[in-house]
């Protein structure tokens, strides 16, 4: 009975993200060129907010000076606490709710937005200690936050977002535009 169904391990297996998640994108968030966000939605409806590979922070060898989850005097995402199975008490985020601000060493500041409606479950405190995680593994260990959409809204998450294919079209069009308008 042992090992009768071993996989053909020569072909690379799908990664954790490919196995369990669907990628959704939001391009040029808040009208800011290239500030693309990526939402990884797990099959259990949970969403992981990440930077898309195309986000300016991840370009041109930038380095991060500061990540700040305190988005106003009265509100810090670090104070978020959830309790119990039903995740009581988590801050409720709307599409344009800022989640954190990231300042690069070149003093440019970027705001990361929720992109979806849902309850904030967790922010990634590891990137506060080790900001290189965000640069090296933006879609896994360098995630920004975990957000749980309402059960009845979980299927609607994608409605305001782009599929991977649609996003790739946007990105290639963007590249074409840059080439056609040399400065």
């Amino acid at each position, binding site marked *: 009975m042992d090992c009768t169904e071993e996989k053909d391990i020569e072909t690379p*297996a799908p990664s954790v993200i490919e196995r*369990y998640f669907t990628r959704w994108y939001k391009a040029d968030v808040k009208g800011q060129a290239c500030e693309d966000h990526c939402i990884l939605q*797990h099959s259990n409806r949970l969403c992981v907010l990440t930077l898309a590979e195309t986000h300016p922070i991840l370009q041109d060898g930038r380095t991060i000076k500061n990540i700040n989850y305190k988005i106003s005097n009265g509100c810090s995402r670090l104070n978020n606490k959830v309790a119990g199975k039903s*995740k009581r008490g988590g801050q409720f985020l709307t599409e344009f709710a800022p989640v954190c601000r990231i300042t690069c060493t070149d003093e440019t500041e970027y705001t990361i937005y929720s992109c979806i409606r849902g309850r904030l479950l967790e922010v990634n405190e*590891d990137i506060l200690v080790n900001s290189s995680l965000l640069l090296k593994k933006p879609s896994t260990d360098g995630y920004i936050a975990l957000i749980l959409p309402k059960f009845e809204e979980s299927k609607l998450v994608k409605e305001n977002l782009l599929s991977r294919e649609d996003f790739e079209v946007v990105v290639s069009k963007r590249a074409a535009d840059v080439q056609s308008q040399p400065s």
Partner: protein
Amino acid sequence: MLPLKEKDKPVVQKLLSAGCCARCVLRFCCVLVQSLYRQPIQDTLKQLQDFVSNLDSSKPNESTAVPEPHPAEGDESHDATEAKQGEDDSEQGTRTAMEPPDDPPKKRMKLDEDLKGSDASAGSKDAEAPPAPAPALGICVVCLGVLQEYCSRDHARKVAEAVKTEDYHFDTIVLSVSLPAQLCVREHSCWLHVKKEMREKIMTRVKDDIVPVKEAFKWSVQGLIAMELGGVAVVTRSSFEVGMEFKHTATDSDCHFLATTCADCFRPTKNKDSVFTRVAVVKALEKIPDSKFLIHYPSPPGRPTSSCTSQAIQCLHTSIYVAGRYNKYSRSLSQTPWIIDGRRMMESSVEELIAEPLANSFRAKGFNFSSSGREDVDVRTLGKGRPFAMEMLNPHRCRFTKMEMKQIQETINTSSDKIAVRDLQIVTRECMGHMKEGEEEKTKSYTALVWTQKAIEKDDIVFLDDIKELTLDQKTPLRVLHRRALAVRQRVIHSMNTRFRDPHHFYLRLKTQAGTYIKEFVHGDFGRTKPNLCQLLKMDTDILELDVESVDVDWPPAISE
């Protein structure tokens, strides 16, 4: 002879003319002699009629009658009954044979045993008495027929037939009776009707001394049912219950006045079709003052136009628990049915593959599956397997020999090659706890097939073999975070063993504390399990296959082959 005294006469008279059946009269007179309920109701009625009509001639009887039918503790009454017992020992033998052996040692019952002698003598005397005119048997105003037609041999036969068609295996039965709520209202009304007479004669009597309809019903009919079922014992505690439910069309109209006078007692409940449940009606009757009751309801209660109807007989056998260990050899089989939005994700499940042959053998109406933890759909469970238990609901058959259990196990094992079962056995309900107990403390062993991003050599991974008692901080995995609370849980990996396979794969054998999420330890779960294998090997790692090798719970006991 009826254990009634001169002072009971006005009560009996009043009850009979109000339209009470003979058994309800016995109840109101607090007669605890079971055999009097058991005898044909016409005989009882005749005795009662004789009793009230021979107001004077009954006087001499009083010396032989029981001084006090109330369950009095007084030594006097005991002495009196014991003296009589001696008179008629010959009858006793046959009667005790009919007695349920397991009745609780209630005082009432004891008294009944003591009184048997007097009852027997009553029978013989009665035979000499001149025949009284046959009385018209109307529907009783209090029990609405429950203690009349439903205590007949005919009805007992119907009940027995219903039980027989279900084809249960049982040694003893317990009867359960459900009565329409207005019987309480009618009883209360009748009590108010005779309260004055009862109180005047015997100061100690209160409403609670009246024999409840349920009890009188059981005394009247359980012997007949037992006989029809071939002499099975009717007891007060049994794993097999025969349920009788009586309903009446006028329940709502009889109780309606209570809803307006004691509105707070009647709140609509989710799964009841009427607000007039027995509990609610009893509560309302306790609250309502007698004067108010009498304004809204006739006393004695009015004559009913129909008697109760008997609902279908419900048989219920208590659950039987079956335990064992299972192996799961498939990576596309869930432990329990996996249904999303009403659609089945997998054809079958471990639970169903085990339950079906079991439910067939036990002829059960359903089952509840539980196990010592669970594995994912794509994880195999090898080795000695995972302990599980199955509650068989309402089993029609419940006794199996070791050989028969082995045969059921064979049936399960030949029915599918996706699972196998061993150590299958019947266990007690209490034993079920062993399985869940220590779910977190016990150890589990796994084998994982690990993929490494960078090429490795044998020597790159051997250091893992030396890591012992590694404590992990596991945040609730994303995979289960939608249904589990967010927390950081500390889990221990007791030991690890590596087996190199090729430059990008190796087998990792782990011995861990139960409750460790292995997949997350290997791929890191977005860095949420720390430390994880990616950190230990300083490269991305992923898990391709996982097998549970052992679940170290020593229950249920192994069964030798």
